[in-house]
């Protein structure tokens, strides 16, 4: 049992593991990454999910369709309204309900506001991941203005539960249009400040350009959607390809970049905020008159069959798949969550980079942990 002590050459450095998470500042939640390192170089990343598993899909089987809305808020809590909308659209499609324009337009405006506030919080926390702590406060300062609009509209700030099958919970507040317009005016002025603080910074460019490159082929095969996928040139915007609500009547560009590195994922989100503001500006003055909800049956029962509806959340494509056996609660519900797929690529694109880059790549994928675990 004699072992001679051998001095390791740099090529055969010992590989070791560190646990990033479940409680780690840069995983933004209870995600556990088992990172294998050689020195500072990442050899592999194994995500261990399930620390915040809340059984949402299973719970859906025992509750009614209007109740499912409130559970979907809790999945991707930054795209709460868009999640609600996905379930509502699915139920409405199954029941073949005709939705008035007013509801469609308001839903679209709310979706885009949700997207803006989600990207603001992402920008804030991404800056913090890279060590620029001031970004966090700038981002939250502006997000607060959107949340105030949400609060006035539906009472909730983050967990909105504003849509319900057949329309909206409440009509918009009389101040809604004015406040949204004020916000757009304010945010158009403040967005260049984001660029001054982070986008134009030399250190930031050094940290993000060429880091975590994701090719278009990989993006497609891993199913990376949302801004992360579009940064690699994968045209995957559900709003464009399969327009729902009022997206068929607005003009906007799908932000498509080709680089696929951390920097282009960053730029994709910043540009998406601009596009979202364009969409809101086109709709906010043209909200048609009419009812804010359609009369539905007191107990909603979906006809027997399978239904699928996809929407574009702030992080990518959310699919809601419902199997109904004709009862008031679904037989099976499956959410195709964008974050779960986006997480799967983390190992692939962060190999060979340093541990600091792993944090940057993780931040640029914009993961929301409860949406991964559901």
């Amino acid at each position: 049992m004699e072992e001679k002590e051998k001095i390791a050459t740099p090529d055969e450095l010992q590989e070791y593991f560190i646990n990033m998470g479940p409680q780690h500042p840069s995983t933004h939640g209870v995600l556990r990454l088992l990172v294998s390192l050689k020195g500072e170089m990442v050899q592999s990343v194994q995500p261990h999910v399930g620390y915040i598993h809340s059984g949402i899909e299973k719970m859906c089987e025992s509750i009614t369709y209007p109740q499912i809305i409130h559970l979907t808020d809790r999945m991707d809590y930054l795209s709460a309204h868009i999640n609600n909308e996905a379930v509502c659209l699915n139920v409405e499609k199954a029941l073949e309900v005709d939705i008035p324009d007013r509801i469609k337009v308001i839903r679209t405006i709310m979706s885009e506001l949700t997207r803006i506030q989600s990207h603001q919080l992402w920008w804030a926390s991404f800056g913090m991941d890279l060590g620029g702590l001031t970004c966090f406060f700038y981002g939250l300062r502006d997000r607060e203005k959107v949340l105030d609009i949400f609060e006035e509209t539906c009472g909730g700030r983050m967990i909105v539960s504003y849509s319900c099958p057949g329309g909206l919970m409440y009509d918009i507040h009389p101040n809604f249009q004015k406040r949204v317009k004020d916000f757009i005016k304010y945010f158009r002025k403040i967005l260049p400040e984001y660029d001054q603080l982070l986008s134009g910074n030399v250190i930031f460019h050094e940290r993000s350009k060429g880091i975590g490159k994701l090719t278009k082929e990989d993006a497609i095969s891993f199913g990376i959607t949302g801004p992360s996928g579009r940064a690699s040139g994968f045209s995957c915007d559900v709003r464009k390809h399969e327009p729902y609500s009022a997206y068929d009547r607005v003009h906007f560009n799908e932000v498509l970049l080709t680089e696929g590195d951390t920097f282009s994922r960053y730029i994709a989100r910043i540009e998406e905020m601009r596009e979202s503001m364009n969409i809101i500006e086109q709709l906010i003055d043209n909200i048609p008159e009419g009812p804010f909800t359609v009369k539905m049956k007191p107990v909603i029962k979906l006809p027997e069959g399978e239904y699928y509806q996809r929407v574009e959340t702030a992080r990518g494509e959310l699919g809601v798949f419902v199997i109904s056996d004709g009862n008031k609660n679904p037989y099976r519900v499956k959410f195709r969550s964008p974050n779960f797929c986006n997480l799967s690529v983390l190992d692939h694109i962060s190999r060979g980079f340093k541990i600091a880059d792993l944090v940057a790549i993780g931040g640029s994928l914009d993961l929301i942990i409860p949406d991964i675990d559901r």
Partner: protein
Amino acid sequence: MLLDIVINKSVTALSVPWWKVVYDFSALTEWIDKSLHNAMSPFWTTIMELLIIGVLILLFYALVGLFLVYAERKVCAFMQNRLGPNRVGPFGIFQTIADLFKLLFKELVPIKNADGFLFNLAPFIVIIASFMAIAAIPFAKGLQAVDLNIGVLYVIAVSAMGVIGVLLAGWSSNNKYSLIGAMRSGAQIVSYELSVGLALITIVILAGSMQLSVIVEAQRDGWFIFKGHIPAFLAFIIFLISSTAETNRGPFDLAEAESELTAGYHTEYSGIKFAFFFLAEYINMFIVASIAATVFLGGWMPFHVGHWEGFNHIMDFIPPFIWYIGKTFFVIFIMMWFKWTFPRLRIDQLLTLEWKYLLPINLVNVLIMAFIVLMGWHF
């Protein structure tokens, strides 16, 4: 009775009016020295003086540490659209004192499988290193604990000792995050030490001395940053960057990179041991800012312009200590400013910056400065 006699016998009159002391502290120190000599033997006088200096520096150390923590929180709040501490005392000035007591009363968590001796030793090494550096800094005219003839070298050497504490802390914690942080810190400090040294050597060439008091005196007719043309200004910028890196601050805080390594080398420390690391970081910042102020901005020397006697005379009315504190805090403010603006560098970029950019620039800079001094082109 005995004390009365001792005091009556020993106390002599101050050689200058009392209000003039703020312009030249040597009268005060001489008076203390003389009074002590009258009262006791030379041996005990030395002991007594060492004690007084020790207590004063300790007090100063604690006060500066507390104030800098408060200042950082206020400055960072200002940068981030916040208010900062504003509840405890007027403008929240007692917040840091409250925090200090909180840290004092916290439990010192023993770490399983940690190397106990080194683990406990590390914070002391860090704090002693910064404590020793304070001794050589000239705070005002005649207010300097030791005036070494190699003052600049001494300060660089002593302040670099802190890295041993950081390495020990990282190694003995038995934590991989701590170890990565400590290794980063080692590479970083060893590299940036070169730039700090070379930037200071640029000015030492201009001043012709390493003695800090001589360097300050040499700036009587203009601060070195103005006297030394572009090389001095370049050296100042390089010193600012590399000293920030040396104190593990700002965009160079890789050793404790919060988003990557949770807290880096002091992850496992709690209570007052953590407070030691925390305090030492701020005192190190104060020391490098003092050195920058002393070597580049004239230390306690008021703002003088060549032969403008009237102007110089007016500037002399502001006490040297105020000048010194003002300049030091100006430098500290700049360091805080870019800490709260820039994102963090990566370790390889950090070393690239030093070895590929700062060091060559610095070497050329030293040459140019030597040439300027040789030809007598400086003011």
